């Protein structure tokens, strides 16, 4: 005879299963199955326009490793990710600390910082392209007014990737700020009081109390920012198309061009899986770095 407790547990599991089932089926049919099909295609020479496919084994993967454009795109993507993630965390944490404590009108600031997150990335990229225009852009106009030389935001190979970083950080920092703000609010105030008794104030309080207890929130922000950074596509598509001098050539943009411009679907699928493996490895490393035994 099943005990009452066991029966409740089973009913709880059944209810959870039922509630998760629609999303799970959707995920399987519209995400996992296409992913498996793409994995299969990655072992074929598969032109986009023709149903004919030729099995070539690991040739696509071997070609990718020897493809200078792919290597260049990979390096650019890694550099972009590192720069964006670090900058995003620093700025988001700064903003979160600024808006942590209540004051009248705090809601306006929090909303303003979150607004770019809600805006379409195509629109954001188009607007920033206009802002970045060397002759007619607002940013260079301000620099000229301040008697500073104009910057070739999108036409200098040394600067173009940084221009993408600025757009990426501006777009996503609001979301990171919210997550870190939640983390900050979750730290019990009595820990700061206890620390103050021992003489920990200001910077030492931040370093020894705030940062350790923010690790979980930080992990979430870092992993998500890294994944988003690796998905860099729209700003490049709108603003630079990979130039100048391939300085903004990124992985996802190259995958897109390989599939839809060069019609090499098999090769593009192989590149996608290499990207997937890299992101999984990076996420695993980040989980390891940000693991914490500190609880409250």
């Amino acid at each position: 005879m099943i005990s009452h407790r066991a029966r409740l547990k089973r009913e709880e599991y059944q209810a959870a299963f039922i509630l998760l089932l629609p999303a799970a089926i959707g995920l399987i049919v519209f995400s996992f199955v296409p992913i498996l099909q793409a994995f299969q295609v990655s072992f074929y020479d598969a032109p986009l326009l023709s149903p004919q496919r030729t099995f070539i084994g690991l040739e696509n993967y071997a070609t990718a490793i020897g493809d200078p454009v792919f290597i260049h795109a990979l390096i650019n993507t890694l550099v972009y990710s590192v720069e964006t993630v670090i900058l995003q965390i620093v700025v988001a944490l700064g903003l979160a600390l600024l808006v942590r404590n209540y004051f009248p009108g705090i809601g306006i600031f929090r909303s303003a910082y979150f607004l770019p997150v809600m805006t379409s990335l195509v629109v954001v990229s188009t607007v920033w392209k206009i802002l970045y225009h060397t002759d007619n852009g607002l940013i260079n106009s301000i620099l000229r007014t301040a008697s500073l030389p104009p910057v070739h935001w999108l036409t200098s190979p040394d600067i173009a990737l940084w221009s993408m970083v600025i757009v990426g950080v501006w777009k996503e920092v609001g979301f990171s700020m919210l997550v870190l703000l939640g983390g900050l609010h979750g730290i019990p105030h009595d820990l700061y009081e206890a620390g103050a008794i021992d003489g920990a104030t200001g910077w030492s309080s931040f370093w020894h109390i705030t940062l350790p207890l923010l690790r979980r929130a930080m992990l979430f922000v870092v992993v998500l920012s890294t994944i988003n950074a690796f998905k860099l596509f729209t700003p490049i598509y709108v603003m630079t198309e990979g130039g100048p001098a391939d300085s903004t050539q990124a992985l996802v943009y190259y995958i897109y061009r390989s599939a839809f411009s060069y019609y090499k679907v098999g090769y593009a699928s192989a590149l996608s899986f290499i990207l997937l493996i890299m992101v999984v490895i990076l996420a695993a490393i980040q989980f390891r770095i940000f693991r914490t035994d500190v609880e409250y």
Partner: protein
Amino acid sequence: MFNRKNPNRVWFILVVILTLGLIATACATPTAAPAPVNPQVTSAPAAAPTAAPAAGGAPVKLRFWMQQDNLLQAAMTDIINAFQKDNPNIQVQLEAFPFADYHNKLGTAFAGGDPPDVFWMDIRTAQYAQQGALLQLDQYVTDENRKDYLPAAWQDAIYQGKTYGVPMHELTEALYVNTQMAQDAGITLPKTVETAWTWQQFEDAAKKMTKRTGDQTTVWGFGVQRQLQDWSVQPIVYMHGGKILTDDLKKASGALNSPATVEAQTWYGSLFTQSKVTPVEVIPDGFQTGKYAIYQAPSSFRPVLDNNFPNFKYTVVPMFKDKTCSVMTGGWNVSIAASTKNVKEAWTLTDYLTRVKHADWVDKSGYLPARKSLIDTAAKFKDYPWSVFMQELQQCAANRPPTSKYNFLFDTYKQAITDIATGKAPQATLDAAAQKLDAELAR
């Protein structure tokens, strides 16, 4: 129905049925044709057949795709309506997409096994033909029909000696000059290919009309509608005796990095980096708002200026020249999908659009004629400014390399000329680009 002891089982069954139903609906083959990108652009209104279907002609529906443009679609809708009146058993569903999305949509349609029957195709003919997507049309194009076209018109539609498209029209470029700025600078504007500017004369004119305030350029002497693209820049190479690919289209080394090509690209790059008469970044509507004095643009730019900026004064001037004259030509062709189930009707439509209604299309669309019979008989093409375009079309026509790796060539070439325009050494840049192209062309 509801079991008090196990209510969850019932909910489970209901949820599974509902979910499977939703999935089945999502996966169902659509019965309606896909809607165009712009909801304002709908299918051409189908003219009601005025008579019973022709004897022996079962009703057929054709899907026809073209580039989205208000002027072009209006013109095409009229022609499609006339076609449907003349061929009551054939109904044509017209769909249009912005140029930036057109080949994505078309390629995806082919990939999904659901391409249109008849569609516009351009320099990418070789790409599509190489993958078996296009119907070969040699058996349908008569000798008389073929010979009526300007030779350059067929270049983009032929792959490995076989015809995969029929030209709709022709397109070429010229220089549009701000008449007031030219007058103020005291510049005489040539009106024929014979008197066209040399490189030096053009550069001098552009320098005279460039205006700066401090380090900011308020008026650029020269601008290009298709900035730093093969369409606008490759003629510079050709007019200096250079090439982009070898004649067999198999290599770029020896062509793209040949001395003649490097010289041409060096001069063109100096317009950006040394004489600084043209910017790397495009200024939207720059010509009509006085930001560019000389503007290199296709013949299709004229109607845009005349319709939208009627008070703006400009002069059409032939493209500058060097050892020879050279201007890119091309345009849309009409192709048929190899998988179409209605070959006869698809050809009937193709022939109607490209031969029967050629004059009508040219008149309404503002494109240039591709047929000699129309060029020889229509008086307006002998008048200025049409005469500038027609002279270029007949004496200076150049084509882009019709390679099956066109998109890769486009990207690589664009990257190279942009790098040169931003100061990179031309020889090294073109050597690297040639190497990259050789590897891809060999695959």
